[in-house]
């Protein structure tokens, strides 16, 4: 038996270990229940939830790229009421903290979702997604300028007392500016990275493969970019950072924590192996034990902190 203390804190939330699911890659958790004992995860982060139902984008919605993929799902979801009536009661029965990813076209839509969820006991935290590259209005548009990001976070902060995580876009010149702006508006944590804007062109048809042209790049291909951004943001803010982007194993997760992440999330790797999350959680414990590290939090920022 290992004696590594795997607990981490994100805002008011205590997680039994640092490993969460990345929004949009794990459904509501229900889809993975045949493969993963959810109670062994730090938290389940749901797919994006909007106020009204959203239909998402036309097909094809994904295309594979070297060591990664582009997606253009477009945040298809049944809306917050259907979420509260369907997936949420199911999740409430599982022994795992639930973090709901919140999306909107306008600041008041984000706030409306947050307000609706504020009264739900089963929701432990909100992750405000100001970084989705796959919708025309809203999404990433909020995450790429400081005033817009601040505006959404202010609106949401005003209506919720739950732990508020803000998910940042990597498609910016200086991610630390945005991180500081949302911290100043009362965010309890930031998560990064969302997907990188990308494109694949079909050389037979001379047209982009995805109907919207662009899509979001994820998977192992983005990991070095994500680690660099976590490194920068963790040194720029004093709130916890949740790191993600291409994590496939415990070693990858450790890399993010050494860069300054207090917790990590596994996304695309769930498609490769649906048991990845649990494997990363167990592996991270072994990683610490093998090095005589007593608390997983000792890893956080160790790559740059002065001893």
């Amino acid at each position, binding site marked *: 038996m290992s004696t590594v203390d795997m607990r981490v804190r994100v805002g008011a939330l205590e997680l039994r270990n640092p490993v969460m699911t990345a929004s*949009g*890659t*794990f*459904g509501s958790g229900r*889809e*993975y229940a*045949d*493969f993963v004992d959810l109670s062994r995860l730090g938290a389940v982060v749901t*797919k994006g939830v909007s106020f009204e139902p959203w*239909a*998402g984008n*036309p*097909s*094809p*919605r*994904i*295309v*594979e790229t*070297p*060591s*990664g*993929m582009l*997606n253009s*799902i477009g945040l*298809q979801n049944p809306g917050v009421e259907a979420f509260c009536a369907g997936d949420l009661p199911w999740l409430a029965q599982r022994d795992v903290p639930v973090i709901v990813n919140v999306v909107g076209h306008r600041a008041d839509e984000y706030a409306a979702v947050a307000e609706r969820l504020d009264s739900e006991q089963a929701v432990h935290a909100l992750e405000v997604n100001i970084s989705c590259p796959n919708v025309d209005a809203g999404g990433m548009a909020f995450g790429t300028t400081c005033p817009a990001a601040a505006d959404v976070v202010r609106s949401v902060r005003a209506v919720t007392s739950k732990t508020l995580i803000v998910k940042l876009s990597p498609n910016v010149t200086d991610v630390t500016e945005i991180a500081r702006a949302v911290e100043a508006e009362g965010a309890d944590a930031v998560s990064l990275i969302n997907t990188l804007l990308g494109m694949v062109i079909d050389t037979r048809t001379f047209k982009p493969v995805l*109907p919207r042209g662009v899509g979001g790049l994820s*998977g*192992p291909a983005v990991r070095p970019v994500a680690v660099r951004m976590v490194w920068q943001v963790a040194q720029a803010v004093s709130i916890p950072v949740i790191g993600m982007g291409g994590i496939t194993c415990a070693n990858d997760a450790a890399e993010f924590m050494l860069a300054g992440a207090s917790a990590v999330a596994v996304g*695309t790797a*769930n*498609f*490769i*192996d*649906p*048991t990845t999350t649990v494997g990363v959680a167990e592996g991270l414990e072994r990683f610490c034990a093998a090095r005589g590290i007593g608390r997983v939090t000792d890893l956080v920022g160790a790559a740059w902190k002065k001893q």
Partner: protein
Amino acid sequence: MCTEVPTPAIEPVVVVSNERVAEGVSRIVLDAPRTAGAVEPGQFVHLRISRHADFILRRPFSVHRARDGRIEILYQVVGLGTRALEDAVRDDVMDVIGPLGHGWRVPDGTKRALVVAGGLGAAPMGMLVERLAERGIEVTLAQGAPSAGRLLARELFDNLCSRAIVATDDGSAGLCGFVTVLSAEQLGRDRPDVVYVCGPEPMQRIVADQCAGAGVPCQVSLERLMGCGIGACLSCVVTTRNGLKRACVDGPVFDAADVVWDADGGQEGGR
């Protein structure tokens, strides 16, 4: 009437054989006792072909046949993944998630079935024809391919179907023309109780329209690019009269009458 859905699982599989069976098409046999024992006709597996390539996603393949703890897949080489699959040799280890999806349904009281397969659309028809024959249902198969050398699973179909008729684009076997000519004739001749279709999406749509015109229930097996394969990522949506459905869990087999063709962009080419 509904097929029971066994719980999917990850199963390590071992390659038993991998060989060309027609022009551009190979058959790989995998030792996969759990999946072979649980799979229903029309279901598929999500295959992780290689662990050390720069392509990361699994690839979905219909289970053509399942027996003696083994599953057979018929596949066409079209890209990175299927090229890697072609290189697999005996004793190579891969893994599958399966069995996945909702397969073909056999309505109560079915006596006569028409199976329409275009090209690789023959792949999900192997287990189906076996199941129908087992139940004493009279099966007519209408099969199409570009040429005689690309007609798949001839022996199996000839043995189990009461009639097997073919069409080729170049006339090298059977009718010179599209399989949809055969399906139209068959629907007019002895009216089947149900029609099963798989092949390129435009062809499936034509047969679905013929069936709607004839008032015969029709099931189609639709292909979409898939990420997770288990209902989580919404990569694989199909537009139906009841909203967006996921091909990986709600399909791949749909009642043709529910499908809103083309609305979601579909899959260019199909198989």
